[in-house]
């Protein structure tokens, strides 16, 4: 299995019933690249992310994650959906962080982080526990292992959620508006963990409204509206000198 970390999309289309949410999306994300996706709500940013992780299936186009066709295998005539086991295996290599954290409330922070390695990869419990300990410390939550999600603040929960995804050693991390459900005070602590992760060379795709984060950390930036990629390019370039009028209008509103 290649240790890849790239995402490649060609003309991805996706619709929910009569509503088309993604139209001819092209993506090209290199290994170690930090890509931010911005745009108004309902523009399809989250759906792109959910496709890369297999929470949604694409209707048309080609999607390669880590260099492999994602969720499907290709034959001469068609793309066939992979059996659940193969799909699950591909998913273990793509971490996902949700807007609403989605920690398992029936498990402690420690158990949440161990859930992936132990329940999915059948890894050694002792080693996973040790790893979970290190991961907790790396997101600044050493000593919080025995806390249940309900006992943690939003920012703390989100950092545990990041640690839980990292425990699977994914090549790619996806963030779906990771700070949108947090109160302003807690946004910083989550962004700090993400910046730290970016420095380590993890491929990251971040759907966000944090323009400051995009400017500071992102390599590339994609602006989406109404299911289309309107503009893409170097993050700082797009943020300071947007070419498309739609991008200009959006940035004027949010900056």
């Amino acid at each position: 299995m290649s240790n890849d970390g790239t995402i490649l999309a060609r003309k991805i289309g996706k619709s929910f019933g009569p509503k088309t949410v993604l139209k001819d999306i092209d993506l090209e994300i290199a290994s170690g690249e930090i890509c931010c996706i911005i745009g108004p709500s309902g523009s399809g940013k989250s759906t792109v992310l959910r496709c890369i992780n297999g929470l949604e299936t694409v209707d048309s186009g080609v999607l390669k994650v880590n260099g492999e066709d994602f969720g499907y295998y290709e034959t001469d005539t068609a793309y066939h959906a992979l059996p659940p086991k193969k799909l699950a295996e591909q998913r273990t290599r793509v971490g996902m962080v949700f807007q609403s954290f989605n920690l398992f409330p029936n498990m402690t922070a420690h158990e949440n982080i161990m859930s992936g390695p132990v329940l999915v990869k059948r890894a050694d419990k002792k080693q996973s526990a040790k790893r979970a300990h290190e991961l907790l410390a790396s997101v600044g939550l050493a000593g919080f292992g025995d806390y249940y999600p309900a006992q943690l603040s939003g920012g703390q929960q989100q950092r545990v959620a990041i640690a839980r995804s990292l425990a699977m050693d994914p090549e790619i991390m996806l963030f779906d508006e990771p700070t949108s459900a947090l109160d302003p005070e807690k946004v910083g602590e989550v962004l700090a963990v993400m910046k730290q992760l970016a420095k380590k060379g993890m491929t990251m795709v971040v759907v966000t409204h944090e323009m400051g984060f995009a400017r500071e950390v992102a390599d590339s930036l994609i602006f989406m509206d109404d299911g289309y990629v309107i503009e893409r390019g170097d993050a700082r370039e797009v943020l300071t000198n947007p070419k498309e009028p739609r991008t200009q209008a959006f940035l004027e509103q949010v900056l």
Partner: protein
Amino acid sequence: MNAIDPALKPRLRRRSTFEFVAWVVCSLLALGILISVSTNPNFKWGVVAQYFTHETILRGLMLTIFLTIASMALGTLLGLALAIMRGSSIKPIAATAGVYITIFRGTPVLVQLIFWFNVAALYPNLAIGIPFTDISTAIDMNALMAPITAALVGLTLNEAAYMAEIIRGGFSAVGKGQIEAADSLGMSGWTKMRKVIIPQAMPSIIPATGNQVIGMFKETSLVSVLGVAELLQSAQLIYARTYETIPLLIVASLWYLVMTLLLSYPQSKLEQKYSRTTSRLPRKAKPVVLTDPEGIAR
């Protein structure tokens, strides 16, 4: 400026005229019933006392308890299987569970019990064998469907349909985000069910199951029509001999009442424990003192 007197005067609840009327009427009614029940000789309270701990009655009670526990346990297991089948993405499996639930919830338990008792009329012999081999045995259905077996089969199959709906309701109460989180970690369907969905569905399933147990306890009285000597049938056997119908029915009713009250205490405890407000915090949770979370966080 009026001076405000901060003296602690008690604050009184409003009492309407209706409240006083209700007190009087209900008290009179209760008194009347009590006098009637205690003075009417036809109640034969002496006979009630005599038979309350009679051996036949106690044996019937034991059988009732056994039927309740056995049919609830088997029905819950089968119900869990049905609930999982119902949620399957494979259409025929989901449809099979759906049809089962529709049939068993849509027909009276009493009819189902009599049906299973008489199933030998449909299938006189039950043949169990391995296909394409000569290995097989045939069981006489009439012998197999003894009253107690029929009672157990009937109650279990019926209960399974209800439990399936309760469990399915519990499953659907688990947030979509939880399932997505499990999926994105690459959990298999079975692991997801065991570690994420079932533990989180429990708070809504357990109290409802407690209600089913209480319901089942009384439902077992229906199997008396099959001649199973459970509590009610035991009472009937005695009054068929002594013609003391009402006292024996009171004996049976008192036992049902006692058992229901005994069961409703743990039931209310369960409901409290799994009530909405506490369900977020699993009972294993240790009390924690947040001393310096930010300090550690940084």
